[in-house]
């Protein structure tokens, strides 16, 4: 019995010794060819980085970046020097100190230096940290297109109520100026018409400053692009007029661009206009002359046309147009 135990003891010793040897040897070499990803296949669909960008419609210096990368989960944007990313247009900065971001999309990136070409880099990484990279030139351009306002019934072919009427006529005639068949022999686009077109007429009774309560005015509100700190926006008002030769010298049609929209005629008259054009050549009925007058838009972009006459003979105006200065 003791013999047996001894034998067992020897065997166990041998086994233990062998095991110990095996352990010493094994850790490094025995499992060398048995790593955890045995049997896995290489990742052949690697990240491809790509992005697009859209300028902010209000502020051209702000750009929204949309990530269009494939096969990726992590991102690193590098916008370069002098560029700031904001949480919103509120000025709270969300980019890292080196103008980098790990967001998927970055919605408000401000290129304060203004117009120019900027290199933006996007690195897209997948879970294995395989990466794809793209560098794109981002073009910052101020492609400001001024609003081209539409003057309703500017060719004077239709009746003037409501197109040329101010709401509250307290203090002046409740009527708009007369429609007339003696308008300019030109179409609205400036091409010659076969004959006379319809126009607007200021008759003597509607154009006498001594009788303010009977004076007739034409009014129309317009919206133009505002002048801002970034830019000055200039417009042109253009019209054609004719005054009978027999009129007293100094007779005129006055066209004003008012600073704002008005409900009441008295407020419109009292306001300081952005510009005023006094047309006073007495060339005779039917002999229309074109006048162009430039003005700078105000901060609100809300302006209005205000027309009056001061004449003892019929005066005519036609084809009123407002457009951005070319």
């Amino acid at each position: 019995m003791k013999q047996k135990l001894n034998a067992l003891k020897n065997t166990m010793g041998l086994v233990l010794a062998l095991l110990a040897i095996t352990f010493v040897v094994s850790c490094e070499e025995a499992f060398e060819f048995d790593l955890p990803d045995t049997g896995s296949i290489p990742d052949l669909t690697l990240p491809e980085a790509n992005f697009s960008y859209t300028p902010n419609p209000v502020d051209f210096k702000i750009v929204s970046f949309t990530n269009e990368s494939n096969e990726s989960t992590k991102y690193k944007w590098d916008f370069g020097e002098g560029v700031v990313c904001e949480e919103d247009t509120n000025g709270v900065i969300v980019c890292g100190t080196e103008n980098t971001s790990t967001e998927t999309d970055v919605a408000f990136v401000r290129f304060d230096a203004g117009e120019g070409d900027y290199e933006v880099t996007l690195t897209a990484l997948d879970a294995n940290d395989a990466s794809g990279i793209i560098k794109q030139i981002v073009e910052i351009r101020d492609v400001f297109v001024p609003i081209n306002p539409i003057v309703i019934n500017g060719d004077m072919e239709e009746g003037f109520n409501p197109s040329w009427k101010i709401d509250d006529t307290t203090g002046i005639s409740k009527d708009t100026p007369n429609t007339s068949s003696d308008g300019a022999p030109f179409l609205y686009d400036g091409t010659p018409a076969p004959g006379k077109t319809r126009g607007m007429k200021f008759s003597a009774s509607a154009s006498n400053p001594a009788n303010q309560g009977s004076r007739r005015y034409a009014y129309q509100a317009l919206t133009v692009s505002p002048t801002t700190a970034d830019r000055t926006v200039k417009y042109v008002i253009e019209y054609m007029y004719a005054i009978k030769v027999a009129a007293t010298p100094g007779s005129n049609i006055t066209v004003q661009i008012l600073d704002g929209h008005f409900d009441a005629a008295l407020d419109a008259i009292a306001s300081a206009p952005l510009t005023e054009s006094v047309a006073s050549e007495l060339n005779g009925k039917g002999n229309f002359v074109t006048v162009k007058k430039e003005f700078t838009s105000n901060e609100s972009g809300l302006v209005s046309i205000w027309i009056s006459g001061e004449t003892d003979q019929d005066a005519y105006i036609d084809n009123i147009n407002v457009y951005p200065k070319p």
Partner: protein
Amino acid sequence: MKYLKNIKYLIIALTGVIFISCDVDEFLNPLPDTAIAADGFFQSDADVLAGIIGIYDALQGVNENTESSNSNYNRGVQFEFLLTEHRSDNTRSATLEGSRADFHRYVTDANNIQSEDYYQSMYEIIFRANNILNYVDAADASNISKYTAEAKFLRAYAYFNLVRLYGSDNDAIGGVPLVTAVAESNEDELLFTRAPKAAVYAQIVSDLQDAVANLDNSYKARASKAAAQGILAKVYLSQPTPNYTGAKDLCEAIIVDGSFSLQTDFNDVFYNELNNEVMFVIRYEFGNPNESQGFTAEFTSFKRQGRQDGLNIVNPNLVEDFTLNGGNRTAVSYAVFGDPLDPSIEVTKFLPEGTDITTDPAAPTYGANPRDAGNDWIVLRYADVLLMHVEAIMAGTGNANTPAALSSFNAVRNRAGLANDADGIITQEELLLERRVELAFENQRLFDLLRFGVADAVLQDHSARDNDEDITVYPSYNARALLLPIPSREINLSKGLLKQNPGY
């Protein structure tokens, strides 16, 4: 001798064998049971016509009420409203559960079963069209060009839907796989390479031009010349480089032809089937499980009538647009049901037969068999063509004021009980708004937004709104959601060839 005696019988018997067996070739080489029988099937004009009708069958789709399994049954056009209206700002799902509720929240993933089905259905149409083009010569000589044109029309329509929903502008990723002949299963390069968007559009244009040249206006439920002209006009407006002149000419050809007109009563457009306004419809038959549809009950009913309810719920910002610009279209397009304090706004275009929504607005009823509805689905109607005419004249400039444009625009407005355009100048915003209320719930809105180039801006704004009642914001929206993911099943089958859209 005894054997010789019988030899004459033997000879007779042998002769018989020889006579019977003279077609040795077929006898020794029988057609296996698993062989493709198509080669033998199309023998006559009637066979080819059956094949053509089979393409429409793929477009029509299988009613969910007939086969409820979500896999392996092509729904055809029946899920389209989920992929289009739900992803626009028009409608949403009432619930957040299930894959049908993913679209309106912009969380559709590559495993979405409805998107996968639609993708598969459109390629089923393409496969059937490609297949019949191989056998069209078996038809009567006088019909060959017509049948060919019909198959090409349907193929083009399927590609047009696919490229708009799945096709990327980025040529490194590509539009959609462009297969124009029956492909063998080992032609992986052909089946899974996404052709550039411009190439897909070129194929669509060529197919539709063929349809315009060879079809007449005999049908509304099958391809016609006018339908091909109208859809080609939309293709011209949608393609990467729009062809405005071409679109204008096509719309004017339809208008001058005079075969179509606006219905006086807007309600008749939807409930007087095959009326003069509709130009191409997908027909369904009420009560017939194999020829009916189950989707309009899903998106019209206030109390569950379809397999799933609470779909195509009208968004508040669409109601605002209807209130200001709907005219008499509003009452036809949607209705408010249920508790006045917690109302439910439901679509009322395409109500199933037997519906009564007027007797008790708190509890409308939907007839005996709403899940087997027979309402035809309108793909193209004349009002759409009139508004495309305005769009073509506008030609990307942002406004239109020609007499022709105003005539088309005002015809649509006047029918709705609205006055002419106030200032005589139609702006892009006005046109988009008019299309929105005129064609609401007809799966046009998303494509309109994309075509006008305002989809991202409008949906950005829509998904950020938090003041609309019972709509929360959709923070998952981003510009990548404008494209659906290529279904992952296709990616897996492609052995790495098919590229996924960004963000999925």
